[in-house]
Each structure stands twice: as C-alpha cells, then as structure tokens.
C-alpha cells in the first residue's frame, strides 16, 4: 500500500535562503501527523511542497504513490490555511457556497448534481454549522470559519487534510471543539497533517510528530518525541516554545 505522502531527500530554497534541507518523511494513510518547529523553520514550506504548491529543488515527493507534480486528484486533498491568508475577508460568499467549492474538482465544467448538493449538506452538518449555512463567511467567528473550510475538504471527499495553524486567533473553547472534530475525522480514516505552534495541542492530538528546523530533527510517534531531545535541539535555547497544559 502506498503511503499518503512520501518525501525523499527534499531540499528547497527561496533564492539563496534554504528553507528545507534534505528532509525525508513518510506519512502513512490514517496518520495524524503534527508538524512543529520554530517560526521560520520551514514547516509551511514543507507543507506547501507536499501539496505541490512549490516544486522541490532536490529530492522527490509522492502523494498516494504518484509524483506530486503529476498528481491530478485535487479532490483528494483538503487544505485549510491560516485564516488570515484566505480571502474570505470581504467577499460576499455564503458558507454553503464556500463548502460547495469542494465539489468543483469533481464537477469540472459540468453542472453540479443533486448528489453534489447532498454531500455539501452532509459536510456542513458533520462540522456542526448547519444553522450558519446561509451566512456570509466573513460574518462567522474564526472557529466557525475554519469549520466551514473543513467542511469544504469533506465535501471534496478528501482523504488527506492539510492544516496550517488553523486555530490562530480562535478562542480556547472553539479551539478544543475544533480539535475534537479533527480527531473524529482522523478516526474515520482521513490522514491529517497539522502545523500547530502549540506543542501541547500537538502532543495531545497527533499520533506522530515531525519536528523540523530546516532539517528534520525528529519523526516518530508522539511518545518517542516527548522522551527525545528533539524539541530543545530544533528550537535551540533561545527559541520560543508554547506549552499548553491540560
């Protein structure tokens, strides 16, 4: 069985500035991988490389066994970016419209069918925002908005969910709910890759952890990570570590 993501000896630089150096990492189907590292450590870059938003300078990346540059099944990947970067800010788009976008890679240029709309309704229900479906996305709170983006990934029937610090600016209670939702999606078989600056959340939720700072400092299950020195090595003594105690 092919792994969900297979990264081999990948190096990527923005001009002269190396962001990711010789990283090899395999994410099996059904994994919940927490990707951590200090600010500017290249974790978002690594995620973008996995998704095919950048091409590696060296090394290879495969998604579900296919080279990422040739991977055409966009509907299999759900992507939730930091909410500050998505444009929903001013645009009049309803939650239902945003979630329906998950069906677009399936439909291509043809019309959406009743079946598509059923899947959209189900996805909205799964993330628990049915009563907000006709609201504009920019009228939602941060947590609700990120749920809408998760619903979009569900509507596209993604089996890999990539999230880049999805709960920045979301209040603590909604954040816990959000991570419970991620847990249950992972239990239903969806592979999750999560970038999160709060290491407490990651060690609580993820079953595997990859700790990077340009290079990969640790990759393994959560227990081995907690016991290792990877954290101090990657973050150094001056690095800021956010700990979230439960």
């Amino acid at each position: 069985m092919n792994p969900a993501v297979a990264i081999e000896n990948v190096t990527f630089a923005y001009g002269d500035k190396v962001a990711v150096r010789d990283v090899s990492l395999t994410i099996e189907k059904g994994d919940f991988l927490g990707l951590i590292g200090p600010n500017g450590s290249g974790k978002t870059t690594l995620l973008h490389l996995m998704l095919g938003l950048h091409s590696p300078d060296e090394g290879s990346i495969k998604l579900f066994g296919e080279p990422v540059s040739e991977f055409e099944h966009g509907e299999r990947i759900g992507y939730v970016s930091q909410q500050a970067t998505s444009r929903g800010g001013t645009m009049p788009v309803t939650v239902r419209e945003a979630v329906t976008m998950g069906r677009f890679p399936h439909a291509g240029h043809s019309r959406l069918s009743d079946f598509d709309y059923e899947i959209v309704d189900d996805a909205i229900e799964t993330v628990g925002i049915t009563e907000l479906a006709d609201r504009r996305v920019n009228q939602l709170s941060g947590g609700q908005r990120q749920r809408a983006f998760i619903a979009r990934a569900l509507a596209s029937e993604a089996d890999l969910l990539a999230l880049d610090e999805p709960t920045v600016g979301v209040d603590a209670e909604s954040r816990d709910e959000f991570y419970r939702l991620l847990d249950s999606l992972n239990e239903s078989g969806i592979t999750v890759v999560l970038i999160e600056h709060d290491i407490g959340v990651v060690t609580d939720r993820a079953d595997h952890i990859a700790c990077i700072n340009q290079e990969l400092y640790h990759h393994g299950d959560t227990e081995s990570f907690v016991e290792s020195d990877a954290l101090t090595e990657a973050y150094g003594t001056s690095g800021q570590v956010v700990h979230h105690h439960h």
Partner: protein
Amino acid sequence: MNGSLRRPLELVGIGLTALLAVIMIAFVGLEWLRGYGYAEGLYDQFIIFGQWMDVYLGTNVFSYGFMWRSVATAVLIGIVAPLVGTYLVHREMALIGETLAHTAFAGVAVGLLFTTTTDWDGSLLTAALVVGVLGALGVQWLTERTNTYGDVPIAIMLTGSFAVGTLIISYGRGLSGVNIEEYLFGSAAYVTTGGSQLMAVLSLVVVAIVAVTYKQLLFITFDEQAARVARLNVTWYNTLLIVMTAVVVVGAMQILGVILVAAMLVIPVAAASQISHSFRETLILSILFGQLSVLGGYGIAIHQGLPPGGSIVVAAIIIYLFAIFGSSQSISALSTH
C-alpha cells in the same frame, strides 16, 4: 427589503435585462444582415417603432439607427462589464480595467498610425482589441513574476501604455483627421456598425465563458491557494479572466471612453457587494445595478444632450451611495436584535 420578496424581484430584473439584451442583439444582427431577405423589413419595423417612441416621449432619438446601435452597445456594456468586474473586484484587481483601457488607447494610436501611413483599412477598435489583449497578457506575465497583483506593475502598465499612445499620436498628428477625444471620453453618436457588432459578439462570448467557468473563477477568486491545491489550472483561469477584461474594456470604451471605462467594472459590483448575501446574488445585483446605471445615465444624457459616459458613471455612484445607506440600515436593524 423583505427577504421573500427580494429573490423573485431579482429574478424578474435579470429576466428583463436578458430580454432587453436579446432585443438589442437582435437589432445589431438585423442591421448586420440588412439587404438579406426579411432582415431589411424587420429593421425598418424597428425604426418605425423608434419613431413612435420619439412621438410619445417627445424626443428625437429613437428614429435613428445609429442611436439604437449606441443604446444596444450601452445595454450590453451594462451586462458584461459588471459580470467580469465581480470577479475582478473580489480579486482586488479593481484597477486592472483602467490599465487595460489605457493599453487599448495605445492600440487606437497604433491603429491610427497604420491607417494613415499604410493602406491597411481595418477598424481602430480591432487594433485596440489586439493591443489590449497583448497588454492583458503583459500584465499577467508581470504579475506572475512579481507574484502579486500589486499596484506597482499596474501603475507601470497604465502610465507606460498611455505614454506610448500619446507619443504615437503626437508623431502621427496631422496625418489623420480622427478625433481622439471620442476615445478618451466616449460618445453616444460615435458607435460604428462594426463597433456594435464587436460588442454583440464579445458579449455573447463573455457570457458563455463565464457560464461555463463560473465555478473555477469563483474558486480562484475566493481562495487561490486552495484552488491550486485542488489542481485547478489557476494561471490559465487568471489569464482567461484578464483577457476577457481586455475584450470587455475595448467594447465599453466606445461609450464610456478610456478614462471612465473602469467605473462600470467596479462601481455596480461595489454597490452589490454592500447588500448581497451570497456571491450568486452579488453577480445578479451587479448586473442589475449596471443596467440601471446605463439606462438612467443614458436617459439623462439624451434629455440634456450630454455625452453618456459621465452620466452613466454618476448614475452608478448614486446607486452605490443608496446601497451603502441601505446596508448601514440593515446592519443597524440587525444590531438592535
């Protein structure tokens, strides 16, 4: 407005707009086919109908084919400009239309130079269309390389192409008798048969393309990165959008002029975005507001004997102000609950 009434009203409005567009395209088509079979007779019926309109309205406008041509062009501008503009505004590319209009102006200048120095007798609009589309591809190329629709590449293209245009016109001055003001400020009386035919064809093409690519354009507008991850060919759709913009701008330039053309891409959309609940509704309201601006502005222009470009834009801004007022009303109504 009462929500249950709002949707049927919007649909009626869109239906009427579509009907008007069909009639106007029919007129352009009849004029095109004059001399073939029934077209001549039908065309004459149109003009007779216009004479009756003049009698009842006390005007002296609708009896003339060239005025119908101009109205037809304006009505179609009122549809396609806000249609394309809805995507542009929400991609934060509001000034791209202005830029491409200036590029098209350089095209007019090039066309003028060619017609006066060679025996090429193509229309100036064709030259504007070619140079406008090249300009669009140029802007797209620049933004791909600077990685943003920032205002710097836009400012460079806008002023640069206008500079080239003025140079060519100054160089060729005296060689031609064409009045460049028609292109700068637009004119009701200056829409040629070729111009109205161009507008009719490009309107059909643009509406068809948006109908087919509605979903893709919406996705890249809303969340470009997620659209890339979903393996949409974002570069291709961006290029398509910007080329459509260039085409619409060249068509709209005839009535609105280079300087005012961006207004119809932006103002009706801004008004619609104030009060819409969804993207679909934004598209519908943008077109309705665009059409109201065109008809209202044209009415004023005919009544007062003014060029329609300015009055159309002023009408659009009045609608925009009403929309802001309307949306602040509904927000205060919401917040009291």
